[in-house]
């Protein structure tokens, strides 16, 4: 049995569910929005994990679940909780249910895409960059500081400089301008990240179950996710094939970070140098699949269907 967690109408989840249906494999969907009719418990006794998950009117033994795909959204923001008091029984049940589910996923011996602890490296981009560098990738020259003079010096030396957040909170990557220099005093309250702009082609690499899907992105925008806003036209995406060495390097990076499914952001320079910006542990692959027809969701479904029998996944360490 495969367990799929999240909101089934969300595009990436919907695509994976569609492929699971095509494969004809048994699967179960935990729809977060129906938390009120769901329940769960588990216990650990002498290293054995036992428990049950009830969804709707049906109860399932956790031992029957051999793989999990999770795209849980922040349960505190579910529409069903709008208007609920902070400690209301419904809100407490929702939090407790999600906590129980996530705690079990963290230690379950089954294939889990992805566990929370490995995903946490993405909560600090410069920390993750240190791990990325250990795998032989170049990372952009970076300065994190609360000293305006250092930023001015960094920009004067490197000409094109971008700034962006370093935590998991998303920010729009912007190129630093003269106007930005005028407000640099604000960084004194919070060290801020500045990076040398790297010329080249953006490549998003999805790794799943030993497969590699690479998408080249052509855009004049600094942050291609916001291409229409920054450059006036949407980004162009096309499938590309990486060299065997680079493919293996990407797979090794994902394995090192213990991510079953990863979205690796590369930039390949005109001199064929490969920079890695970050590894996304919960990739919204549907954007890339919709624009290139790359069968990423099918690969996720196949990997889930193999579950423990694939032998490829990193079981609970």
């Amino acid at each position, binding site marked *: 049995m495969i367990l799929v967690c999240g909101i089934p109408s969300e595009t990436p989840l919907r695509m994976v569910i569609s492929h699971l249906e095509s494969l004809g494999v048994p699967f179960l969907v935990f729809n977060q929005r129906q938390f009120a009719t769901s329940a769960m418990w588990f216990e650990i006794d002498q290293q054995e994990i036992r428990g049950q998950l009830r969804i709707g009117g049906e109860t399932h033994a956790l031992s029957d679940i051999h793989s999990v795909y999770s795209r849980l959204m922040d349960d505190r923001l579910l529409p069903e909780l709008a208007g609920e008091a902070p400690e209301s029984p419904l809100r407490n*049940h929702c939090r407790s249910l999600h906590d129980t589910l996530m705690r079990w996923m963290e230690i379950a011996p089954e294939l889990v895409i992805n566990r929370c602890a490995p995903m*946490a490296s993405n*909560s600090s*981009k*410069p*920390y993750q960059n240190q791990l990325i560098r250990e795998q032989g990738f170049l990372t952009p020259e970076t300065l994190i500081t609360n000293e305006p003079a250092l930023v001015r010096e960094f920009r004067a030396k490197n000409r094109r400089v971008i700034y962006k957040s*370093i935590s998991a909170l998303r920010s729009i990557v912007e190129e630093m301008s003269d106007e930005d220099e005028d407000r640099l005093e604000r960084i004194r309250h919070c060290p801020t990240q500045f990076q040398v702009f790297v010329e080249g082609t953006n490549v998003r690499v999805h790794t799943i179950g030993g497969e590699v899907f690479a998408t080249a992105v052509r855009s004049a925008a600094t942050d291609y996710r916001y291409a229409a806003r920054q450059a006036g036209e949407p980004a162009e995406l096309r499938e590309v094939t990486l060299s065997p060495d680079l493919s293996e390097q990407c797979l090794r990076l994902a394995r090192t970070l213990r991510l079953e499914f990863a979205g690796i952001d590369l930039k390949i320079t005109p001199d064929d140098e490969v920079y890695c910006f970050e590894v996304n542990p919960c990739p919204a692959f549907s954007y890339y699949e919709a624009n290139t027809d790359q069968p990423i969701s099918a690969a996720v479904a196949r990997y889930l269907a193999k579950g423990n029998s694939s032998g490829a996944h990193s079981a609970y360490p």
Partner: protein
Amino acid sequence: MWLVLCSSTDVPALWAYQGLRQLGFGPLELVLTDGLARASHWEHRLDARGIHLNFTLADGRVIDATRIRGAVNRVLFPSTIPEWAVSPDRDYVQAELHAFYLSWLNSLPGVVLNRPTATGLCGSWLHASEWALRAGRAGLTTRRYQQAAQDSPEHGGVPPVADASLRRVIAFDGQVFGAPVPRGVANGCIKLAQDVETALLGLDFQVDPGGEWNFCDASPCPDLSLGGMPLLRSVAQVLQEARP
């Protein structure tokens, strides 16, 4: 130079700082998180030459990573966020500071006790369920852990332990410090510390009337005074072995 990084209320860390100085270990700098919060200058670089760190504390001390040989790291969370910061800016600053601390702490050279991980700034902070599973796999006797999506008080974790039956130890460098421990338990403590890649790990046990040691909890930020001077001598030796 070695650092002791801790908050001004971290009594065990302050005890360790004084104890290490009494042992003649140094040069040793006490860096308080309160001082880090008011640091006037932060410079953290990642470039082709490597990873660099330089900061100036409010009292004027300059800490340059090139001079650091190691650290006792007890940073639990980033420095205090100014009162005037309100949500959503406050949440943003909090996340950014945590990300920043994780990176610069990880970049410290030499032996760092403990190195940060993605789950904790001073080592692995695991949930009770994960400690229970890992402790069992390390050969320690564990009590049954239960968790359910119910509000009833009988569910959730493991039952509390009476103080009288609680024993606390510290696993470090292949030894166990603190309360005298049966050999099999000591081996399990050392194995668990290795498994979670945490050099200095505190472990709590409940000893039942029959003398059975049952694992209760673990922490990468234990009360160092439990290990007394023998622990500090061992810490000093491990830190000393780090090359500049």
